[in-house]
């Protein structure tokens, strides 16, 4: 029986809004699929494009950056700066043969527990539709060789 595809998604969550929103999702017990692995960062604007590329190169099926709503950034406009980098990252991903849809950036406030759950649910569905990361096969071979 083939295994059901359970994608692995890397989430970069800003400390002030998204991570706190993720905590609130827990408090209100908003259920979402267990595919995202949260990494807490201080600001969505802290996530270096290299990290996104690295994660997808290493076989992550999706990467999502989550930050405060535009205008609500704890550091004035870090999220706007993060958003400004998105297009560049997408171009690089396309060059690498990775669907740019595997990478997303969304805003969730520290009060939006329900929305946090919905965002992760939707993104997980999107990745499931895309199927496994095409680079993952190479990577798995690599892994076995080592």
């Amino acid at each position, binding site marked *: 029986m083939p295994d059901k595809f359970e994608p692995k998604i890397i989430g970069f969550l800003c400390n002030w809004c998204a991570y706190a929103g993720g905590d609130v999702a827990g408090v209100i017990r908003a*259920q979402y699929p267990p595919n995202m692995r949260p990494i807490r960062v201080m600001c969505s604007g802290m996530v270096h494009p290299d990290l996104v590329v690295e994660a997808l190169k290493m076989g992550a099926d999706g990467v999502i950056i989550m930050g405060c709503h535009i205008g609500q950034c704890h550091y004035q406009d870090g999220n706007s700066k993060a958003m400004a980098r998105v297009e560049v990252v997408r171009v690089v991903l396309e060059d690498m043969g990775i669907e740019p849809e595997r990478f997303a950036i969304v805003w969730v406030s520290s*009060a939006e527990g329900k929305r946090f759950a919905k965002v992760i649910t939707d993104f997980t569905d999107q990745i499931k539709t895309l199927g496994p990361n095409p680079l993952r096969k190479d*990577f798995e071979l690599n892994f076995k060789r080592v």
Partner: protein
Amino acid sequence: MIEFRVNKMAELLDVHRNTITNWIKSGKLKAAPSVAKRYIVSKEELTELFREEGIPAELIEKLKIANGIKSNISENFKDIKEFVEIKKKTLPKKPIGSVMVVGGGITGIQAGLDLADSGYYVHIVEKSSAVGGVMPKIDKTFPTDDCAMCIVSPKLVKCVRHFNINLLTLSEVVGVSGDVGNFTVKIKKNPRYIDINKCISCGICSQKCPKKVDDEFNEGLSRRKAAYIKFPQAVPLKYSIDGANCIYLTRNKCRACEKFCPTGAINFDEQEEILNYNVGAIILAPGLTTYDPSGLDFYNYKNMPDVVTNLEFERLLSASGPCFGHLKRPSDNKEPGKIAWIQCVGSRNINRCDNGYCSSVCCSVAIKQAITSSHHCHGENGCRTIFYNEIRAHGKELEKYYENARDMGIRFLKAMPHSIEPAKDDSGAIIRYMTEDGSIFNENFDMVVLSVGMEVSPEIRKISDIFKINVDKYGFAATESINPVESSRPGVFVAGTFTGPKAIPKSVIDASAAACEVAKILIEAKDTKTHEKIYPEELVADHAEPRTGVFICSCGINIADVIDVSELSDYAKKLPGVVYVENNLFTCSADTQALISGKIKEFNLNRIVVAACSPLTHEILFQETLKEAGINPYLIEMANIRNQNAWVHQNQPELATQKAKDQLCMAVTKVSKNYPLFTQSVPVHQKALVIGGGIAGMSAALSLADQRYDTFLIERDNRLGGNAWNLERTNKGEAVRPILEYFIENVENHPQIKVLKNARLKSFAGSVGNFVSEVESNGIVHTVDYGVCVIATGAGESIPDEYMFGEDRRVMTQLQFEREMKLNPTLSYKAKSIVFIQCVGSRDSKRPYCSRVCCAHSIKNAIKLKEANPLLDIFILHRDIRTFGLQEELYKKARDLGIIFIRYYLKNKPTVKREGNELYVNIFDPISQQPLRIYTDYIVLATAIEPDQNEELSQLLKYYVNSEGFINEAHPNLAPVELAVEGFFVAGMCNYPKLIDESILQAKAAASRASLILSKKDMQLDAIKSFVTEKCDGCALCVDVCPFKAIKFEEIGDNRDKHKIITVDNALCKGCGLCVATCPKGGIEVHGFTLEQLKSQVHAALNTTEALN
């Protein structure tokens, strides 16, 4: 103060009305708009203007007469002056810098922590063997359904560890002498029979003890031994022997515990001790007892095991309770399907128990229990029923909580059951009740919860007697609205449920407010009795091979129910660098902190991973543990396997466990890359900024200034006072004007308060301890430096768009009517009928919240009218009368006077009609089941309270508001005055509708919390800062990106070797890392979040080979 209408004033001065309007607009006549197109101006201002304009001064007197206003200010003014004088006299000359807090519940703990953190030594006296009070007994807290133990535990731990807190358990006050500034309190310390210093909390004494007694912590639902700890997470975690039940102490044989104790800690010779403490002030927070329903024979509480109280039910729900979090009913240990709650048992009842007040919290408690028990067991839909009189969901977010419960299918029945009878097989119960329409039902339930209220026990009354303070007829400490934490005895303050029934947030606010008052009177003795904590020297661990200890929390069953913690533990053991793994029931509890410290030494650990809840709430606690064990506090990582795993993947235990393993691997990998970080300190601007000059803002400003901190108070209008100008009396019956005048006079004359009126905040920069803003006031821009900020921007009456408001002048808002009553003293005689309509614009889809103050406000005005003219018909049309707490007395009085209360439902709202000149209201009366038509002279609309939507300010300061625009506090229960942004605090109605005394309390609490920051000249900066690496080539791309201008481009070296480099100003850098993501070559990084660290997490999450290296 003089109040006038523009046309009347024009008539009197013989000028055109536009002249007056122009004077007001230009600021020449400094009049403030009042209600009903009236203005208010001070007599001095007017005299000045008359002098300038050459108008005879006598006309002023005419103006007052012409408008028929009697100013009651001057009458009460004398009292205020005396009040001020008395206040000054009560300030002690050479006070002692330590404080006694009586009661170790959440209130006492919070007050103690606030004071100990701001320079005073604190003794906390607790009667039982451990602190915490009622809160640890509670399963979850409303409205967030946070685990109560998890949020109180860090505070308890902090308290027992605090260097400047002396915890006196098993102790009680037996006498007090002396005066404010210098009391001597006599304490009786009961024997524990176990030496605290020798006890290692192994529990062998308890295992070996043959004597079993009812466990009071579990409300008698389980048994404990005579040698026991109060609860497994008790603070201090030391066993004690219950002298009243111990076989040896009562019958002189046994001594089993002594024989088996491995450390020889048992000491049966211990005697009670009498200790004397000298303190400058006292805070009484002895807490509450719940009503014992045994006397109500018709509820059969004593005879039927499945009829329990709400506190017993909490224990049944709790993971640390007798059912270990799996709800079972007492009669047959089966999971109950159908549960009923009966409200107001022992509250609002003068028939059987004389508790005439409303206990304030039981409605929300019942809703919470109904919601959380649905998580615990899975009965059919609608199987949870709450029998109620009125649902009082008057707190912030509670109306939505209530609505959510309705949507979940919880049944709310307006009926007070007649009796509870046993069902067959002695399990479950039959409730007999009558619904509003008169139908009688007998319904079977598996379990019945009696929502018992709060009471003052005889023991608590004894405390009032010892301290000789005044109490009301129920035994609650008597206080006044102007200072709701001050008792009748100078230097003795009261807080928590001792001053009336209240929930956790209000108790926490009380605690901080009381701490603030103490700090005000002991200011001369600050820092005279306290000591600095000295941590052991840090072990050098940066280059050491990681020796990681992993602690996995079950969080009761919160985590362990979903995630296989033993599998997780086994997995952890295989991770690189891990030398020790342990699974704890509650990793945050005090005993686990001691355990972690022990394991650090035993296994020579140099890095710690805690897999538990969120680092946002608990990392600080574990960092403290590390510091005490001599490890750099940044050598810890947390894996959030509760909030971001177990709680959100409840139905996928296998995948959740898989995710938990990845999370743990990520944390272990990251911690191996962590290195010690060191904080820097920066000087603090020991000044405060208060935004908003209403009662809350003024109260906050005074509280800060009285603690000797320079305070700027900025007010948007041209006068201080805000909404209080429109109110006549508080619910306790005190005149508002004198309170207001007292505040204004003190604020304006305080040497350390600078008031800026007509002011706007124009800019904002800086960080906690070092903010800077520009404030524009009357065209002048002032630059203000401050360390903390209190926001008290207030709220106002909304404008109704229904019930013919605006179409008929007899329909008016509450405040307009109050004004009308004042202007028209004969109103109560001239009118024949007055109708009050409640919840106008509140509790509907547009504003899904309760405005909280309107019920008591309407009733207060109705009583005043009815007392003046008993023949006047007064109708109050309401949805639930929410006179919570001691305000219930007003409701009773109103009914006794013959004021008629008619209930309506949202789907069947009253309608207002006019025929000719006759105004009437149509409403359906649910009791008589008849439509009614009420002809009336006035219709008073209790309109919703709306926050001032201050876009400009919220954009500038970036605080969060809830969906209705009220400013959100950092945590509804344990940080009720802090904002999420450090250094910012909130008070008054901008946070939620509040009564005057509640606004004053919150303002004092905000001042107390703010003074913790201001009390120190320097503050420690966070260590999370950016730093320049050797890869930086000075390209300067990062300079412009930095939002805080923390990165500078500097030229160094002499002529021969001149080059440019990047430098980071640590005081300005906030560690956001925008520079990191901009730098193309890794030339700048942020400590704790370096590219290497983040990459290691990515690899760990993906289980790549690199992760395992």
